[in-house]
């Protein structure tokens, strides 16, 4: 492939750019560096001018395409995929982060274009060859695509975030596309209040498992998290036991994180959990069972009763 035309689908809440968008931009920059070409960013939403303005500050982006109408307010895969379909003929690559929205809209769009799709990629080797984890991250597959349109979601933790410049550089272009959702309607959205850093963006993550014992005991983790400026995570066991809400789950079926420091408290280390955190820079495990598998991947392991260890840790950090 020579001269790529890359489209980065921006993720946002109609006001602010989701930070993972900048990881997708880095993936696009890597593609362009390998083969040369243009990068456009696409914003689909409602009253989202501010998002377009922020993205126009990205050096190396040629254009920011704005598809701004009330019908796009809710981020429905149904009509967002149709916008992508309408624009796809101009591009060789369409890239977005593997968030809830990206995973929802991109496969639908790929099917409309009759192309296969690359999910959750961690490395770009060339314009047509990537690496992606399979089997909960227990194996890596090097995959080459023959599609002339390459549709991919990228794992945000595997790419640094491109930083916007001080002044606006990219041209902002408004596009008039009208695809009304006919079949799907958003009824409500319940956001969990975030008093702490976002789990997938945090530098430090403190996760609790079944061993924490109760919702009340999670307060200890929260106190420690606040002292370290950390986000709170959890294993599936802790979520199923009702200790915390499910959007805090780290693992193959939950969020993938790769912070500077990951502290696993009362977590045994099942493969599904490890899939979501094993790329953390430093892993600390605190567990009463010296044979817990989590110790096999922990840089620092402390065997003991978390009810003695946590208060001391809170006291001393």
């Amino acid at each position, binding site marked *: 492939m020579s001269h790529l035309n890359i489209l980065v689908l921006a993720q946002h809440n109609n006001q602010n750019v989701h930070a993972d968008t900048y990881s997708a931009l880095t993936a696009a920059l890597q593609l362009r560096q390998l083969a040369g070409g243009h990068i456009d960013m696409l914003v689909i939403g409602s009253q989202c001018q501010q998002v377009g303005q922020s993205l126009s500050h990205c050096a190396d982006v040629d254009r920011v395409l704005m598809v701004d109408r009330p019908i796009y307010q809710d981020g429905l895969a149904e009509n967002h995929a149709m916008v992508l379909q309408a624009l796809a003929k101009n591009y060789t690559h369409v890239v977005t982060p593997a968030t809830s929205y990206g995973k929802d809209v991109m496969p639908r769009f790929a099917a409309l274009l009759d192309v296969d799709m690359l999910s959750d990629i961690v490395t770009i080797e060339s314009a047509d060859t990537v690496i992606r984890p399979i089997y909960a991250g227990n194996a890596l597959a090097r995959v*080459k695509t023959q599609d002339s349109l390459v549709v991919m979601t990228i794992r945000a933790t595997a790419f640094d975030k491109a930083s916007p410049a001080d002044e606006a550089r990219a041209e902002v272009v408004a596009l008039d596309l009208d695809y009304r959702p006919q079949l799907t309607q958003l009824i409500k959205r319940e956001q969990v209040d975030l008093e702490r850093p976002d789990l997938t963006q945090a530098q430090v993550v403190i996760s609790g498992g079944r061993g924490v014992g109760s919702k009340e005991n999670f307060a200890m983790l929260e106190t420690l998290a606040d002292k370290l400026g950390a986000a709170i995570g959890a294993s599936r066991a802790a979520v199923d036991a009702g200790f915390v809400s499910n959007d805090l789950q780290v693992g193959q079926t939950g969020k993938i994180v790769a912070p500077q420091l990951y502290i696993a408290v009362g977590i045994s280390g099942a493969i599904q959990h490890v899939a979501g955190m094993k790329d953390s820079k430093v892993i600390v495990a605190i567990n009463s069972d010296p044979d817990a598998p989590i110790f096999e991947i922990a840089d620092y392991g402390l065997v003991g009763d978390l009810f003695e260890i946590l208060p001391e840790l809170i006291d001393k950090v």
Partner: protein
Amino acid sequence: MKVLVAIKRVIDPYTKIRVKPDGSGVEQDNVKMAINPFCEIAVEEAVRLKESGVCKEVVVVSIGGVSCQEQLRNALALGADRAIHVDVVQTYSPLTTAKLLNAIVRQERPDLVLMGKQSIDNDNNQVAQMLAGLASWSQATCASKLEIEGDKALVTREVDGGLETLQLNLPAVVSTDLRLNEPRYASLPNIMKAKRKPLEVVAADSLGVELTSHHQVLEVVVPASRSAGVRVNNVAELIDKLKNQAKVIE
């Protein structure tokens, strides 16, 4: 209404996988296989819809070699009424899977297609969305709650940052997340009964779908392992290591 559930045979999730030394893939021989856990949740949800009187018939479908009939029988034992095995030997992509399912959908005309949000082998999370796109149906992925109200489905989805509820016009495709339900175990009498339930084998090439993948897996490798860590004896030592050795806290 009629519900179609797509299920996949995968390596049992509690098995530690082994990458083949020649890099051609993951060892599948003599490995315990099972229904993909998310698909099990989809079967359970369909059976509950039947038990609550909302749904009249639950049809399970699986695509693959003859061995996936074992997982179809499991699904029949869990309460599905009949099974369709789409017989395919070569490898094929998620898009091809979605096309084959779409062909079955056109024949069966279900009101709802349920499937897992992803299979735990390839971790793609694509087929439900692709099928919905091909069929021009509404979709709801990562469902943690499903209610049928007349010709609509109300689906609560697990999304980053919380939950959202969508109203879908039926027919629709819904993919299941872990918290939708707790799948039941098949009882021995039901396993026996499942042996007599209808299981139809459909040749993939009779469905008019070209069996391809535009992707070629060049190599499968084991990820770099983390270097062995150390055990610390107490909190003071841990804090010292984090501050002075790893330099991740101040």
